[in-house]
């Protein structure tokens, strides 16, 4: 966008919204919204605290572990579903149910099953991410150009060759798309898991701050989380654009 002949950098509109926040905060309309300047001050203050860094570390650990399991289990499952009619018939209804289910409602059950600790949070994260990864890998394999498969067959490709040299690569753009959406959902999963279980990570911090009406702290942590989630998602989109450059061209 250009304004008075100057090209504005991306997301300059955030300045406007930040200003609005500051005004509302300064006006003292509600204790719930402190001025942005105060929130940012608090933000830098708590970034260095041990409690924050511990929360960040625990969250990162749960997030990475959850995403790892979602990818390692999700991609092969999806590819096999795309190739095998039987497996597809068996699993597809469950995948669809879990994809659209309000998984938050499952977290209490997980807590009962796996305890109130890290394990439940990791499983929650995996459950948020895995279904879309499975579905996308499956779709990637199913949309594969039939004549590529015929071509490989006509030149004498073995089933292993076909799997690693045709199916995987042909499905890669869809698989990566699924992984990106899965990881974005995993960010939600890890936060929701922590909030509900609320004795570790940012969940514990939120609990602490909101119970003590420390709204500045509360907003500061929220800004950090939003920024992290947004950065991860943008980074993945960038990777996806680089790898799937040919997807539109086939």
């Amino acid at each position: 966008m250009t304004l008075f002949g100057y090209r504005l950098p991306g997301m300059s509109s955030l300045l406007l919204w930040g200003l609005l926040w500051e005004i509302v905060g300064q006006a003292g309309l509600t204790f719930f919204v402190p001025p942005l300047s105060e929130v940012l001050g608090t933000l830098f203050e708590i970034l260095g605290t041990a409690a924050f860094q511990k929360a960040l570390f625990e969250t990162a650990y749960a997030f990475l572990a959850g995403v790892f399991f979602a990818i390692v289990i999700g991609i092969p499952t999806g590819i096999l579903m795309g190739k095998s009619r039987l497996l597809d018939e068996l699993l597809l209804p469950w995948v669809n149910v879990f994809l659209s289910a309000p998984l938050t409602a499952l977290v209490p059950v997980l807590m009962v099953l796996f305890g109130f600790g890290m394990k439940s949070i990791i499983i929650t994260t995996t459950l948020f991410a895995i279904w879309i990864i499975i579905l996308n890998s499956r779709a990637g394999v199913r949309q594969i150009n039939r004549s590529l498969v015929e071509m490989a067959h006509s030149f004498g490709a073995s089933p292993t060759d076909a799997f690693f040299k045709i199916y995987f690569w042909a499905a890669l753009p869809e698989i990566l798309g699924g992984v990106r959406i899965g990881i974005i959902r995993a960010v939600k999963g890890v936060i929701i898991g922590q909030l509900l279980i609320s004795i570790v990570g940012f969940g514990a911090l939120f609990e602490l701050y909101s119970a003590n009406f420390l709204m500045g702290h509360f907003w500061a942590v929220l800004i950090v989380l939003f920024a992290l989630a947004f950065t991860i998602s943008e980074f993945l989109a960038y990777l996806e654009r680089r790898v799937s450059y040919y997807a539109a061209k086939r």
Partner: protein
Amino acid sequence: MTMSQTKETITPAAAAGFESAVSARNISKNYGEVEALRDMSLEFPRGQLTSLLGPSGCGKTTLLKIIAGLLEPTSGEVEVNGKKVTGPGPDRAFVFQDFALLPWATVLRNVAFGLEMRGVAPSEREARAEKYIKEVGLAGFENSYPHELSGGMRQRVGLARALAVDAQVLLMDEPFSAVDEQTRRKFQEDLLQLVQNENKTFIFVTHSIEEAVYVSDQIAILLPRPSRVSEIIRPTSFRNKGVDNIRRDPEYLDIVDEIWASLRTYVE
């Protein structure tokens, strides 16, 4: 158009003293209730180009894929050099209508793909691929990706891939239908050269009458419902008059008209 007439037209061609590289014998193919091919027999002379020509739905691509071993006939059998076909084999190579190139691989790797599947060592297969890339006129594009090439160039890659495995029989499924008219003409001229220089048997599926007459030593006219070989035409006089003279040769024009007359009623 009866079956007996069909038999009559086949016999002279088969008896004309040509050795068959490929024989299709009594091929039938059913998809459930639908009869795609019924009791079709056809001989393909060695070192020559045979076109399968007919309206859509006449089963020409089905027959080609059965010869390739990509489809299994419901009954009947195909022999290539006296050996019964049970699946794809190194004696045949396929050129696809939509090129079927790996979008994530360079031209070099695409051309070498058939050799790669046959377990040829990387250095040797790349050397052979490079040779055929030059031969189809794509030198300098070894490291390009398919999406960077025009349709005609992509099909040259598909052709180089089929040539690189050095199969005796080349199966071409409407290879020029997805390229533009001018490129197609150039391809047709190059194909005539190829048939002359390479001692290979070509089986060529097309729906273009002009194309079939232009490039073929033998044209098999296939008619639908039920699918059958209705006629076999062997142009004689214009093949050696040079690529520039074929299209105004009286025999060429007569054959084109004659084929259109017999196909006309089958075109919706």
